[in-house]
């Protein structure tokens, strides 16, 4: 009996959390589509996610592209396939590294700050204050963040793609001695629209996951500073895991033969 009790408690808690999360997601999505809308809040979140994340995403993509070119060169040299570097860099960046690295960086930056902000609002009764002022917190706090995450991550990933490919180009040309026009030609010839589009779709999904996790954990935080701290950690960890999980699922959908 004593052994079964904790198992039962865990199962019940799991289903309660899953149910709460499903309801929260449903409400969040429905409030994105139903008036009243808060365009100022959406704009503020778009600037926060899209503009202020640019440096961190740009730098990550630049170094990822540079490392990729260098690693590919040293690896491919073993079977004389150095010329494939341009193809490898552009495919890896657009299909995989651009969206995933941007997603993980934004999860750390935005997911954490959203969970901390909404969590603090929750424990200081600001969320309750919204309700008493006839403002639905899901509509005012959650929906604008979901919309901003969904729309701004593709924009960030598009820039990350360009910067990442440029990083590979820098290393290939100035360190490894490739011909610039040949490198660019190979990059361009090998790239297909689906490579970029799949990356952008992934970015949208990751943006939704990051903001949803930040909002969900912040919204349900309890117990003062410790609760807000736990919400922040949970938001980043759960968003990161879900990004990698959905990355596989979306890759299967797009590219599995």
């Amino acid at each position, binding site marked *: 009996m004593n052994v079964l009790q904790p198992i039962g408690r865990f199962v019940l808690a799991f289903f309660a959390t899953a149910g709460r999360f499903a309801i929260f997601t449903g409400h969040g999505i429905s409030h994105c589509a139903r008036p009243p809308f808060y365009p100022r809040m959406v704009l503020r979140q778009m600037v926060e996610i899209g503009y202020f994340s640019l440096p961190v995403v740009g730098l990550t993509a630049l170094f990822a592209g540079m490392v990729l070119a260098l690693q590919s060169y040293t690896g491919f040299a073993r079977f004389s396939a150095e010329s494939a570097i341009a193809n490898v860099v552009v495919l890896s960046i657009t299909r995989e590294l651009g969206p995933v690295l941007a997603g993980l960086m934004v999860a750390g930056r935005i997911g954490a700050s959203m969970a901390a902000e909404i969590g603090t*609002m929750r424990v200081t009764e*600001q969320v*309750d*204050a919204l*309700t*008493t*002022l*006839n*403002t639905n917190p899901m509509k005012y706090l959650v929906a604008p963040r979901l919309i901003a995450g969904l729309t701004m991550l593709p924009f960030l990933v598009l820039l990350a793609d360009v910067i990442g490919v440029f990083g590979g180009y820098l290393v290939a040309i100035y360190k490894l001695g490739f011909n610039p026009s040949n490198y660019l030609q190979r990059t361009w010839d090998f790239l297909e629209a689906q490579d970029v589009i799949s990356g952008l779709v992934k970015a949208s999904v990751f943006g939704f996951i990051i903001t949803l996790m930040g909002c969900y954990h912040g919204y349900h935080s309890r117990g003062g500073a410790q609760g807000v701290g736990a919400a922040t950690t949970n938001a980043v960890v759960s968003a990161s895991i879900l990004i990698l999980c959905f990355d596989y699922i979306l890759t299967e959908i797009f590219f599995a033969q």
Partner: protein
Amino acid sequence: MTENSTKITLRGVHKSFGSKVVLNGLDLDVGVGESVVVIGGSGVGKSVMLKCILGLLDADTGSIRVDNEEVVGSGTKTREHINRKFGMLFQGAALFDSLPVWENVTFGLLAEKRVTRDEAREIGTAKLAQVGLSAEVGELHPAELSGGMQKRVALARAIAADPEVIFFDEPTTGLDPIMADVINDLIIKITREVGATALSITHDMASARKIAHRIAMIYEGKIIWAGPVGDIDTSGNAHVDQFINGRAEGPIKMAVRA
């Protein structure tokens, strides 16, 4: 109290969290234009009662009526209609950190698009003046204000839409005695000016004596005594006597864990 002269009526309100019963058949009447203060120790259900009236929590059973309109189990539209009658001063002020003071004060009006931003700024300044704050304060952010000023701003926000009922959750908690008295005076002045009904919860007896027409004491999820403020010292209720005199000995046993 007749039905027409009653603003808020609670009958048999129950609220539990798991196995913990917080409200256990609570009855309370608040008359139109009356200031009722609910007193009681920590954790006896004062805040839960307030949250049930405000719709922040759903009562399990019982009836909560505002102007004869049922709150328990009401839909979103009814809830919004009832909430428009309310103003609320939260214990910790609960001001929105990201917004300047004037926008905090007029948040409800702006959110419902009842006024333009220019009109809101004017209203904000006027409401701040009502609580003794200058227009310059309106341009600051909540983090730049002292605790007392934050309470005043929260009070200005509570009266911004000229509510019919104002709720005060521990209005003087965390303030020094002088600032607490300033807030008490403001509460009396403001409720009189707005002509609002007031329902406060507190365990500050000085505050309760000053702002209340009637006092009710909550214990174990029920109102165990209610009467005019002048009768509180002669209530004849041992629980009330122990509470208002702040005695450790008496029928109220505080759970103290070693």
